[in-house]
């Protein structure tokens, strides 16, 4: 909740004015029943109809004033809530974009997603609600108590006694409710997970005739969810009747005590009536506060989740050259004794060293999970190495500012993303490239052919995740994106696995010709994709087990030869 206060700070003055208006509005409202008792106790016995009408008019005036000031205050509150939400979301999104991949992995994407959406929404809701109700209700209660004290102290005390009871009851219910609520939220997650999985895997489910199995699985989750929701709901169902009953008990006691006091000449009947009015007001305020409390637990949990992300300092800061001195060997890219582990347990990369000159091509090949992609990611500094150095032009990547580092690369990653927007937007990717640059890139990437097949060509709209493209089309589009920004280094991570060999070959030829002088790293499973590289490294379990050109490796590396033979099927190449 500190977070919320922080974002309110720049609008301190505005918040202060808003609070003042709200207080004024509430105080005016408090006067209305006071006038009522005044009429009954003083004007009516005096028997002057004119005075009764005048004081009725005063009441009306107060009602109008209360209405106006409340509207103004509420609108000001909305403005504050808007500001806080906008700022929170902005900061949160900004921070997420700057988190390192390791940090994102730790939070997990679904969790970040829900923080950005539902949690900010909860906070917004709470800010608005607490400023409207949270201010009004306590003032109503305190003001109500003060006014009733001036009417009759004894009766006021009786009324006040019920409040701790209500507070205890509401507190207990809320306290019990929070874990129940959390539990049912988790059950929602499991139900949603099944729906998500099944929508994605419907082919497999139908192919295996698993419909009944899935129905049972869903039914189990559904039952669990309903039972959790039931528990939470039933717990909450008690709150309103308890508050109402307690308040009305107090009311009945007030009347009895009032009767004795009137009998004893200590009070007047009109005051009891006014009292009943205040009681209704206070009880509404109490119910309001109950709601604020329920919202508070939700809002503060959400605010905590948001603050957690914002408080995460992005690691991977730019470090000084003193710590990681440059070492110029003339190579464009160099890895020197690099070791790295994702989880800090088992090394995913062990002692990898190689050098690559300007304009050269590096092919990385190896078994599933052998660390090919990790090498590419270390070069782009998605993660920091545990030991050793990764250098570009002799400079350690840790000493290169992020913007400078990232603009060096054109990248296609595994499962890379396409967003809802035109083909042009997806290739451009916010870089304000010219049409000529984009068309050239699409041409090189062999994507032009299918793009021009659409009536609206480059303006053709793509679905989120590119679901209206085939696998091969998606990859060619992503390659266009990587080629378009005239990068210094091109990283193609398994970017052509969905392409048939013919298109793949054409693509490689086009890149070679069109991207002359660009240092290229190709991560692949096909020998044919890397066989013409200047340097090929063969990875196995995080280590380099072979290094050299295609022909050298056929001689020196049995694993490479095995892969090559299996793919080219022992066919003779003349």
């Amino acid at each position, binding site marked *: 909740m500190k977070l919320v206060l922080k974002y309110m700070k720049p609008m301190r003055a505005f918040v202060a004015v808003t609070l003042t208006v709200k207080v004024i509005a509430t105080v005016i409202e408090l006067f*209305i029943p006071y*006038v*009522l008792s005044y009429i*009954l106790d003083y004007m009516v016995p005096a028997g002057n109809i004119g005075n*009764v009408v005048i004081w009725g008019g005063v*009441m009306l005036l107060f*009602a109008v004033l209360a209405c106006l000031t*409340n509207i103004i205050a*509420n609108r000001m*509150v909305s403005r504050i*809530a*808007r500001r806080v939400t906008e700022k929170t979301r*902005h900061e949160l999104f900004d921070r*997420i974009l*700057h988190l390192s991949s390791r940090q*994102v992995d730790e939070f997990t994407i679904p969790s970040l997603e829900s923080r950005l*959406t539902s949690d900010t929404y909860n906070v917004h809701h709470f800010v608005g609600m607490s400023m409207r109700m949270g201010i009004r209700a306590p003032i109503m209660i305190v003001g109500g108590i003060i006014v009733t004290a001036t009417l009759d102290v004894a009766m006021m005390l009786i009324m006040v006694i019920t409040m701790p009871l209500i507070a205890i009851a509401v507190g207990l219910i809320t306290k019990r409710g929070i874990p129940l609520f959390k539990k049912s939220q988790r059950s929602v997650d499991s139900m*949603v997970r*099944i*729906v*998500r*999985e099944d*929508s*994605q895997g419907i082919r*497999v489910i*139908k*192919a*295996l005739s698993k419909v009944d199995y899935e*129905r049972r699985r869903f039914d189990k989750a559904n039952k669990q969810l309903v039972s959790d929701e039931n528990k939470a*709901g*039933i717990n909450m*169902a008690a709150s309103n009747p*308890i508050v109402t*009953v307690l308040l*009305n*008990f107090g009311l009945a*006691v007030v009347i009895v005590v*009032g*009767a004795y006091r009137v009998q004893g000449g200590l009070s*007047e009947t009109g005051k*009891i*009536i006014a009292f*009943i009015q205040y009681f209704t007001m206070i009880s509404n305020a109490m119910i309001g506060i109950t709601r604020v409390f329920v919202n508070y637990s939700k809002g503060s949990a959400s605010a905590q989740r948001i603050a957690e992300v914002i408080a995460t300092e992005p690691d991977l800061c730019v470090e000084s050259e003193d710590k990681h001195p440059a070492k110029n060997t003339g190579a464009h890219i160099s890895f020197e004794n690099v070791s790295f582990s994702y989880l800090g347990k088992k090394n995913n990369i062990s002692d990898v060293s190689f050098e690559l000159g300007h304009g050269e091509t590096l092919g990385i090949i*190896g*078994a599933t999970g052998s660390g090919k992609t990790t090498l590419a990611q270390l070069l782009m500094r*998605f993660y920091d190495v545990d030991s050793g150095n990764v250098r570009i032009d002799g400079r350690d990547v840790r000493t290169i500012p992020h*913007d400078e580092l*990232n603009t060096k690369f054109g990248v296609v990653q595994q499962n*890379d993303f396409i967003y809802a927007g035109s083909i042009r937007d997806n290739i451009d990717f*916010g870089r304000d490239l010219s049409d000529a640059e984009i068309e050239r890139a699409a041409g090189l990437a062999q994507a032009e052919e299918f793009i021009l097949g659409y009536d609206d060509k480059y303006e053709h709209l793509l679905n*989120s995740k590119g679901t209206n493209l085939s*696998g091969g*089309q998606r990859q060619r589009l992503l390659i266009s994106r990587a080629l378009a920004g005239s990068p210094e280094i091109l990283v193609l991570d398994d970017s052509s696995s969905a392409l*048939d060999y013919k298109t793949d*070959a054409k693509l490689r030829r086009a890149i070679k010709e069109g991207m002359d002088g660009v240092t290229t790293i190709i991560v692949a*499973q096909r020998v*044919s994709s890397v066989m013409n590289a200047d340097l090929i490294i063969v990875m196995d379990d995080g280590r380099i087990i072979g290094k050299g050109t295609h022909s050298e490796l056929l001689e020196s590396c049995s*694993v490479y030869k095995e892969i090559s033979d299996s793919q*080219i099927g022992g*066919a003779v190449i003349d």
Partner: protein
Amino acid sequence: MTDKTPKRKKIAQELGDTRGKIKMSVLRRIAKYLLQHKGMMAICFVLMVVSNALALVAPKLSERAINAIAPENGTIDIETVWINCLLMLAFYALSGILSYVLAVLMVKLSKKIIYTMRRQLFEHLTTLPVGFFDTHATGEIISRMSYDIDTVNTSLSHDLLQICASIITVIGSMIMMISISPMLILVFVITIPISIIYAKFRAGFVRPLFRRRSQKLGELNGYAEEMLSGQKTIKAYSKESVIGKRFDEKNAESVEAYYKAEYYAATVGPTVNFVNNLSLSLIATLGGIFYMFYISNLSGETAIPAIFTISLGGLSSFVLYSRKFAGPINEFANIISELQSACSSAEKVFAIMDSEPEPSDKEDAVILDNVKGEVSIENVRFGYVEDKVIIKDMSLEAGAGKLIAIVGPTGAGKTTVINLLMRFYDIDSGSIRIDGKEIKDVTRDSLRRAFTMVLQDTWLFYGTIAENIRYGREDATDEDVVRVAKMANIHSYIESLPSGYETVLSDDGVNISKGHRQLITIARAMLSDSPMLILDEATSNVDSRTEQKIQQAMYALMEGRTCFVIAHRLSTIQNADTILVVKDGDIIEQGNHDTLMSAKGFYWSLYHSQFET
């Protein structure tokens, strides 16, 4: 404020005519769910009437108590005060207990309904054709299941109760007030029209703003979701600021829509209070005068007709009733708009429930069993949409146990052939027969059981590795699971994991590589033991060394089965009995590797492109 009107019109235009009525057909359908629980509904109704009636009587009791202490009596009748206050306590307590029971029952009732709705929706989803999932985003289906059903549920448990309670309260308080003072009722002649006019204004104007608000929030969420999934790419291109700026635009739009809605909604609370206070002041003024008449009548000074008089207790309880009376009327606009959003949610849910399921099997459909695996495809023509034919004219004979390979450039229609064989889609013309039986004439279930399928898409569910492998055949023993895992060359990897076969596969699969996931799907397929096999790029995520290692197992799996294999790596299919070369939806070449190579056609050029650089 001068531009208020045009602004409103503009918003209304942008939104189109979204005021739409609550559709009776949708309401009737929701009602059907309620009527399944007639008994419970009846109990709830009785409880509601009784608890509200009890709450209504209580102010009447306070009237008597106060009259007993009214100054004009001279004496104070403490006993009456006590009796009435104790009665009040009893009535409130009883009413409280009843309303608690009622609330609990309503929670249970609504949960029963929500359970049924979810189950029905899910079960219907499983009957829908695969095409439905190809054209509907997963997120959309999820929001039907969670958000929309929840909205309906909230409305059922809350609004319905509220409406019934309101009607009882309004009528009850009206009767009570008339019994106290028929003349004071006239106050409402002034205030009720104000409420109604205001409610109308609100319904027409604020509601579309709220709809726009949720629409904008949806857009923002969609954008955030999309960009988060592309976080690595954004980083790689250093486009944080551009993406951040776009997010800010969406954020501003969403917050603005929210603000606009709240700006106007900010008038609701105070206005409702104002109407209440207006009634109160009018009642106080008029009631005060009536009370004066009452006193002067008592003292015999005047003889004003009783209708123009009121006792002090009467005035007090009249005020209480008037608050009760005004509440529901002011709330009515709220409830209507909530009901409306529930209806639009329900409509979306029902739309899925109404979408055409896979056509049911023919009545005389036979069960395909003891399958030998002879497949014949004859003059098949098919397109996903009517005017775009994907497969023009395809014919093929595959004897039992044969290996059929389908090759061709990207997007040539290879996967479509599989979709047709499994009857995920029905052909437009021609015929597909298995063991001489038209696949249209056999049950889908038995047809699909006859095939085992391994796809490029490595679909696994959240659960342990063992559960995922056993998915291929539920009655498989642990030994079976280990056996196929060994065959698929994944056993030693699984054993190297800290929890072995009990390792839980997480949603995003961050904890296990794509290649390993694919090996698990292969193990799963090996377990299911069907007479025919479909491998659609089954090893595309596996490096060729691993592929080679499992090749033997794959051959063992293929042994004696009719196999359809789609592959890019031509090396894997050279020993196929028949190779179909598909291009633009037609089979342009057909034969085995040797005949195709010697024909020097498209296959030949595809084959050679493997070695091109």
